[in-house]
């Protein structure tokens, strides 16, 4: 097939051009038995309880240091499943493409999706493609929904216990900072890369080591602050965090200094936060350190009853303050 230079309305029309696009691009990169069966719906089988999630991706810009909208669409959904202790198995992928979108860009995105799937072994088993007139979407939007099989039950934001240890799997704020860097009009540049990555291998390592996990969440919009505050409220506990233990990359810190932001308000797309029972904390760290994506995991705090529903940040020199939910729209279209 000779690739078209641009995606046209006819590619979403349901006719010959649509079929070519699906076969030559999507089926080619996402190839698996179920998908290629090309039925109206994918027929799947699972043995246990399942986790089911969905996410739409509208990130701008669509290409950024450390990834693109496709990589994000896979990692984001796969991570949501992993955070529930579910092995990611099956994904759907829906594309809404603006008329005139360059074919090469679409291929780069699809290829990145296929590569990202390999990190979890999940497969895209069904999908949809729509092409809309210029201006109806901004370049490309992707929705992915995912099904995972629960391997570890009981992980919930409502079950944090006093004494639980809080661990963060890597340095915080890199995705939000990387996106901010690429926004026009700010006149800044740097090597800062998004942390966009699949976390399933790290969760697998924790499950295999039989770590007792109370809660686990990837820190997307709202960053570390959002997750900690949600947990404090939902479990009615206090989270006491040592500020100097929160790992922050130098370049993220530089960006925060320039604009007056806090790294823990920025989004992450490959970094998660866990609450584990105190006795399992070292075991959890050991398991996480064996996996590339979480090799810098570190303890940042502990659960107490000091002030229920709040997160307290302790400085290294004896003062403390509340860490509240980030306010206002920090950055639009971050994921």
């Amino acid at each position, binding site marked *: 097939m000779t690739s078209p230079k641009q995606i046209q309305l006819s590619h979403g029309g349901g006719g010959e051009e649509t079929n070519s696009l699906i076969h030559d691009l999507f089926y080619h990169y996402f190839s698996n038995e179920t998908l290629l069966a090309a039925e109206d719906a994918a027929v799947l089988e699972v043995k246990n309880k399942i986790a089911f999630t969905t996410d739409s991706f509208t990130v701008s810009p669509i290409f950024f240091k450390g990834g693109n909208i496709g990589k994000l669409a896979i990692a984001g959904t796969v991570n949501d499943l992993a955070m529930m202790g579910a092995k990611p198995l099956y994904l759907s992928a829906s594309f809404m493409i603006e008329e005139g979108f360059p074919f090469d860009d679409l291929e780069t995105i699809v290829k990145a999706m296929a590569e990202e799937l390999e990190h979890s072994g999940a497969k895209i088993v069904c999908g949809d493609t729509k092409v809309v007139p210029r201006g109806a979407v901004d370049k490309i939007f992707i929705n992915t929904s995912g099904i995972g099989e629960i391997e570890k039950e009981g992980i919930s934001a409502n079950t944090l216990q006093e004494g639980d240890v809080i661990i963060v799997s890597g340095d915080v704020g890199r995705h939000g900072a990387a996106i901010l860097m690429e926004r026009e*009009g*700010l*006149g800044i540049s740097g090597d800062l890369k998004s942390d966009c990555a699949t976390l399933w291998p790290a969760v697998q390592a924790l499950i295999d080591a039989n770590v007792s996990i109370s809660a686990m969440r990837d820190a997307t919009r709202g960053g570390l602050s959002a997750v900690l505050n949600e947990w404090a409220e939902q479990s009615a506990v206090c989270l006491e965090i040592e500020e*100097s233990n929160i790992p922050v990359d*130098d370049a993220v*810190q530089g960006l925060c*200094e320039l604009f*007056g932001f806090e790294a823990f308000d920025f989004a992450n797309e490959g970094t998660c936060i866990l609450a584990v029972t105190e006795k399992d904390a070292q075991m959890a760290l050991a398991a996480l350190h064996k996996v590339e994506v979480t090799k810098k995991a570190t303890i940042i705090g502990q659960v107490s009853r000091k*002030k229920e529903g709040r997160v*307290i940040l302790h*400085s*290294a*020199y*004896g*003062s*403390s*303050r*509340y860490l*509240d939910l980030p*306010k*206002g729209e920090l950055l639009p279209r971050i994921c």
Partner: protein
Amino acid sequence: MSELQLKDLYDGFRDPDVIKALAKAITDEAKNLKEPLNIMEVCGGHTHTIMKYGLKQLLPQNIDFIHGPGCPVCIMPKERIDHAIALAQMEDTILLTLGDMIRVPGSKSSLAVERANGCDIRALYSPLDAIKIALENPDKKVVFFAIGFETTTPMTAALLQQVEKQGITNLYFHINHVLVPPAVDAIMAGGQAKINAFIGPAHVSVISGAKIYQPLPEKYGAPVVVSGFEPIDVLQSILMILRQKNEAHCEMEIQYSRSVTLEGNVKAQEIIAKFMEPREHFRWRGIGDIPYSALVLRAQYAAYDAEKIFADMLPTDPIDDHKLCICGTILKGLAKPNDCQVFGTACTPNNPMGSCMVSSEGACNAYYRYGEI
């Protein structure tokens, strides 16, 4: 001496052990105070440092901070914010300003709301970005709503210098630059706030030089220490004030010696003086009119002065704050943000009743963001 690294300029002035050591030295020195120390930190940036690093928690009970009026957006009365809105609403107009102005509430609306309603309003990181916008939109009126204390004024002047040099005719200026010393004098003239020491602004002083505070110690019997923005800077400044008090000195000292000199940035001062002069009247929120406390473009630059050219679009009547908003009292150092009935409830950064809650240098914003335990 070893070579200075960039990180030293941050971490070196935030070192936890040094902070602890300074806190201890302050506690020891404060035992000898004859009366409580009420330090006014003039600059909103210092208020933020104090709150963000929890410095009050490290200090003994007999030292208190009185938050000053050093927030250039907070001190603007509502009618001047309405000026920005009126300018933005003009046909074929692009309104440019610095980020802090966007969400500040006027009497009925804000620039953020007007932008959502379709007005072309843009936040600039640097005033120089206005040039590109003016050149790209030759058939539009581009108005730069300039805000800031002495720190930011030279940048507006530098922009005007470029505009003149490049012969740009569609870029206008609405000047709201204000001065620190007259504001401090006005607050002290009120006679109510019990201030007996000052922490002088860091970056205002880089531009204007520490010389502008030289009259203060003698005038008010209060030491002035010009401090940097890092927590160690502020703590060291407090220690310096304490030592002056206990040794019965009363003078102006520079703690921020790595960036502040007595003379300041003379080139910046000259460029300001070339294009601007003090204006006879300027109403400050909560304080009222302070003569010669703000700047205006010199007569020969009237062709760029939006306040003159678009005068008939601009409201003139003074507009007071909502009756529950005590921003004015806070700016005078007579109340703290948590004294306000609506603090954190009806008034939040997302729904501000007054600019102190939404500006990055506002005291209310600092208290809200870095909530005290």
